[in-house]
């Protein structure tokens, strides 16, 4: 006996009576799926926390049981306390401020120079012929190699730090700008020629958007290199800054300051990276919307 579709007992009508049952079932499935998704997210995050928790435990017992002498390995608790004290005294903020301002200045200076160089060499074949080979050779040179010479010329004060970090910034910015321009699909440029764009229009409406991803990569790398160079020069000779904090901790046998400094550097690095990624995704979205 087959049921026909208008047999009410088999196929309950989509009337008021049947809705609660269906709805409940659907809701239940939805809830289950939702919880599953959240659980998976939490689970993934929790998974990532297992290793740090383990390391923290090992660190804590190593310090408590003196596996490494206490003058060399600070207890996690004392690192935390030092961080809190530094924050409360305002020292942390002021040191961070010094370091951050150095990086900011260098990004501005090095970034501008890098963009100029990159755009110049990318758009003009003559400029590229003159500048690129020298730039290439200089770029192979590790930034640190410049430091002894910079110390002689720029001293050990802000001049040294900003010039050293700027050099560290120029290289990735230039290279990535060049790359970005080289990768512009030629038909875009043809279109702009058809429309007879002025130079400014070409730059603003074609080159920049097309090169944006590479520019962002360059920016990200520049920030990383800047931070790397900053720590190096601050460790070398400084009277304020996060690197100075680490040197101070080292010289006065306060390894908790050393580790606190490392933690702060890592934290700032993470934050910067996240901020840049967010910025990049924002710009990408705008870009896609424009096209």
């Amino acid at each position: 006996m087959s049921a026909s579709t208008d047999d009410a007992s088999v196929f309950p009508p989509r009337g008021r009576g049947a809705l609660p049952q269906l709805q409940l079932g659907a809701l239940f499935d939805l809830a289950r799926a939702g919880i599953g998704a959240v659980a998976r997210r939490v689970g993934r995050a929790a998974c990532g926390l297992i290793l740090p928790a383990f390391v923290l435990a090992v660190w804590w017992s190593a310090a408590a049981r003196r596996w490494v002498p206490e003058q060399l390995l600070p207890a996690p608790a004392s690192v935390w306390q030092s961080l809190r004290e530094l924050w409360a005294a305002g020292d942390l903020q002021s040191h961070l401020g010094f370091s951050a301002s150095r990086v900011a200045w260098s990004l501005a200076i090095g970034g501008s120079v890098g963009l100029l160089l990159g755009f110049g060499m990318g758009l003009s074949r003559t400029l590229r012929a003159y500048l690129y080979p020298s730039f290439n050779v200089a770029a192979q040179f590790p930034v640190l190699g410049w430091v002894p010479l910079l110390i002689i010329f720029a001293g050990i004060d802000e001049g040294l730090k900003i010039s050293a970090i700027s050099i560290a910034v120029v290289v990735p910015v230039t290279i990535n700008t060049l790359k970005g321009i080289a990768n512009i699909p030629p038909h875009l440029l043809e279109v702009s020629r058809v429309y007879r764009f002025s130079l400014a229009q070409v730059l603003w409406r074609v080159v920049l958007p097309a090169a944006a991803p590479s520019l962002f990569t360059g920016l990200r790398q520049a920030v990383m290199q800047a931070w790397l160079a900053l720590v190096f020069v601050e460790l070398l000779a400084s009277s304020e800054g996060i690197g100075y904090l680490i040197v101070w901790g080292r010289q006065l046998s306060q390894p908790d300051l050393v580790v606190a400094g490392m933690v702060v550097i890592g934290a700032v690095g993470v934050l910067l990276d996240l901020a840049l990624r967010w910025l990049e995704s924002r710009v990408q979205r705008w870009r896609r919307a424009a096209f």
Partner: protein
Amino acid sequence: MQRRTLAMAFSALALLGLTSVPASAEDKPTVIRISFPGAGTGGRPLSGGSFPSNAHLFKEIDDEFKADGIRIEWKFFPGAGPALNESYANGLTDVAFGHGDLPLIVGRATGLKHRIVLSSSRFGSSYFVVPAGSTAKSIADLKGKRLATFKGTAGQLTLYRWLDKYGFSDKDFRVISLDNDSTKAALATNDIDGTNITPFDLQARGIARSILEIRDDPKITRPGTVWVGEEFEAKYPQIVQRIVTRLVKVAYWSTQEANREKELQAWATSGSQAYIDYKKDWESVSDLRTRINPLLDDYYVASLKNSIEETKKYKLIRKDVSIDGWIEPKYLNQALKELKLEDYWPQYDAEGKLKVDGRKLAARN
């Protein structure tokens, strides 16, 4: 019952037997690791300026233990006092020749355990130096400018004492941490505006000039220290005694006027101070015993206590440090008795004033 008492008697006897093992001839170490909190220019393994340096330069300690087949491992630290602390914390050092007050105290505050057996040098002149082109005439002129000192070393406290003497604090300046070589380079390129350093060689080369000088002021300088690790001392007291006795012998030799030239020249080989620096700096010292003095007298103890107060005042240590059980004068006293030098050296009181004059020396030839 009987068995148990027998067993107990047996174990008691056995225990007695174990604990009353005759103290065999004290084991000797195969190597003694002696560290200097510093190094010559460019990090070279030489030092100068004190009688422990002489002990190394003239191979006195090596000689002392050659017959026993004990090797001496000499360690030099461009990282100065703090690096020596790290080395000791890692168990890589047994004896320190000439540790400055600040790293010494910081080490103890962080839990390092050692025993002070001698003082290595005292008094001495301190200079305030500015780059050659600077127009500054006093510390007040340098307010807000950059001063250099090697943070964590005795030099840091010396600088603070200078600033204190003239009514300033370290917050009135920008104090940069630089080692000796970097300081000289920084003076030459005008990258710092003032520091404490011996100026004569730099003056001769037109790099810097001294604007202020404080001579042999017990309030500005502090004695250096020779210490041995606590474990090392507990294990090898006789070795420690031999080291101390030999050092006192070297100290005696170093105070002989006839040897002044020789030691000045030897000290200059380290390069951290030029010969002319040593010569001029020691010119004002008519009796070498004022500066070359191993005694752990009232002045030494009072200085140490003052330094501890200072480190607390400048918040350079976070735990208090007590002197109890730290200074161990028995080796020094034994050495002085053996060498019949009990009255040789002048003793100073807590204020740094002469308390007991040293033995009258034979007329200078």
